[in-house]
């Protein structure tokens, strides 16, 4: 028989280039997995390289992807809780866009991490909203009309409502997946399990592709069953310079150097020329970082966390 859609395919493997070209369209609403670590870096570079435009980003704290995309002029709008590189530094591109309209002005709709999480959960459950006790009393509802407050019809207590997020595309990096898209995660998964379900189209990237038999040996680890997934891409070190639990440590010295460049618009543009447009693909980026360096990040991580299943 013919399968009706890409989620039914039994082999969803493709390259990152193909996945982004196939599933990300100009004007789409997009969401990335990761939080603190497990950031979608390879993916953001590829989107920039392909010259995508007018995207809306929904995310809790999509620091790397958010700041890169806004700096590259890819985003028209962000619905987020946070944009900064945390310990390594501030999101200079995000600031320049909001404060000075560089490279162009963007709309920002503010939420909190939990309530962005609830928006994805609502999308994943196919309900139009979810209630919360966050946001009450704060100024977020004052400047965001889509945060509504209501009196609970059962008890009369106050709750805030946030609307479901239903992005066109979710891009989520996981530990491993089979070719059907049964995606598994060791360690925490931030909002990944809901992102994949909230989105219409889902690109799973993974550190390693494994057999379906291996998936079946550890069904507890599956955060995205194959019926949620459209594409599977093996992208080792996809989060560099960020960390991937059980795979490689955070390359914070690299990040410091990167953010020093991002402080100025010129520095950022030069960085993109070199690290994004100056290479053909993520393989080129990895080559440039140096395999020995990546290997050392992997080896040192193994001393702290190792998969014992």
């Amino acid at each position, binding site marked *: 028989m013919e399968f009706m859609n890409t989620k039914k395919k039994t082999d969803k493997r493709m390259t990152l280039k193909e996945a982004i070209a196939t599933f990300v369209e100009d004007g789409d609403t997009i969401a990335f997995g990761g939080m603190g670590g497990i950031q979608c870096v390879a993916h953001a570079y590829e989107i920039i390289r392909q010259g995508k435009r007018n995207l809306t980003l929904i995310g809790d704290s999509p620091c790397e992807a958010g700041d890169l995309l806004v700096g590259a002029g890819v985003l028209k709008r962000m619905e987020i809780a946070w944009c900064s590189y945390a310990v390594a530094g501030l999101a200079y591109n995000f600031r320049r866009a909001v404060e000075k309209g560089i490279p162009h002005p963007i709309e920002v709709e503010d939420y909190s991490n*939990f309530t962005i999480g609830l928006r994805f959960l609502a999308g994943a459950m196919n309900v139009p909203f979810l209630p919360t006790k966050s946001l009450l009393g704060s100024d977020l509802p004052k400047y965001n009309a889509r945060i509504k407050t209501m009196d609970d019809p059962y008890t009369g207590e106050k709750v805030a409502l946030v609307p479901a997020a239903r992005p066109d595309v979710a891009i989520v990096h996981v530990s491993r997946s089979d070719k059907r898209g049964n995606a598994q995660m060791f360690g925490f998964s931030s909002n990944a399990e809901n992102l994949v379900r909230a989105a219409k189209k889902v690109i799973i990237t993974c550190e390693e592709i494994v057999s379906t038999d291996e998936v079946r040996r550890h069904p507890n680890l599956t955060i995205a069953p194959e019926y949620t997934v459209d594409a599977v891409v093996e992208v080792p070190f996809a989060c560099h310079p960020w960390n991937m639990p059980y795979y490689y*440590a955070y390359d914070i010295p690299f990040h410091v150097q990167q953010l020093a460049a991002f402080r100025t618009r010129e520095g950022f543009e030069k960085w993109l020329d070199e690290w994004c447009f100056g290479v053909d693909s993520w393989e080129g980026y990895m080559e440039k970082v140096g395999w020995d360096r990546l290997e050392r990040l992997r080896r040192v991580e193994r001393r702290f966390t190792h998969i014992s299943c």
Partner: protein
Amino acid sequence: MAESQNFARDYNLPELLVAAAARELRDGDVVFVGVGVPLLGALVAKLTHAPNLIMAMESGSVGPMPYRIVLGIGDNACVENAICTTSLWRLFADQQRGYFDVGMVGGAQVDKYGNLNSTAIFGSGDYYHPASRLPGSGGANDIASSAHRTVITIPLEKRRFLERVDYITSPGYLDGYNSRKKAGLPGGGPVAIITNKCIFRFDPETKEAYLDSVHPGVSVEEVRANVSWDLKVAPEVKVTPPPTEEQLRIIRIIDRAGIYTNNGLKNLTFESYIQLLEGSLEELQQLF
């Protein structure tokens, strides 16, 4: 705690702040931590007077015992020896459920009722055209809404300590008195503001911040000069205790490169970073 009498002599300001954060925590507390001083404080507490303290990180990790400095709330260190790794929304839902005793939050502006702004400094503009766009709430609004008590860390500066913040990202006591409760917020609100010069606490009735202790060598006047409202002061202002010898020893093992308590990242090379990690592993394994 007898050891708490053995105060250290040679310590720096960040180390004092870590110790102050640690003192806000009790044994058995579940603490929603952010990186930096709050996290170091939680680790120091766990390794001294609060062995049963549980750290929760918003990436989805509960109860880790990391053998290296934690470089983010989603750092790999967060999964080390965790008792539970789950998802972001579940962690926050657990906080909303009331399981978390303490949350640590920061911001760029704070006001007399402990409301925090980490969204935008309006300057001559407004929310849509701010003088300075800040990172945003992240999890701070959620922590401030639901943790039983929150501990605020922020530097003491007149432009930061305002009668009213430009934008309430994270609710403190809103307009004071019972206004927080009336808004429907489940958590208890802030219990302390730890600054580089002093510690503020909150009046049980009015919910206004007052000066409770000054750090060694700081005067009450110096604090007043850096607060833009008419500051209330405790009848007897205490002196913030310095770190104990034991606290200091642990701070310097955990943050052996001084990333949070000394030089920051500026001297870090890739080689020294890898060495830092490898050295940490051996030293921190002994601690837990």
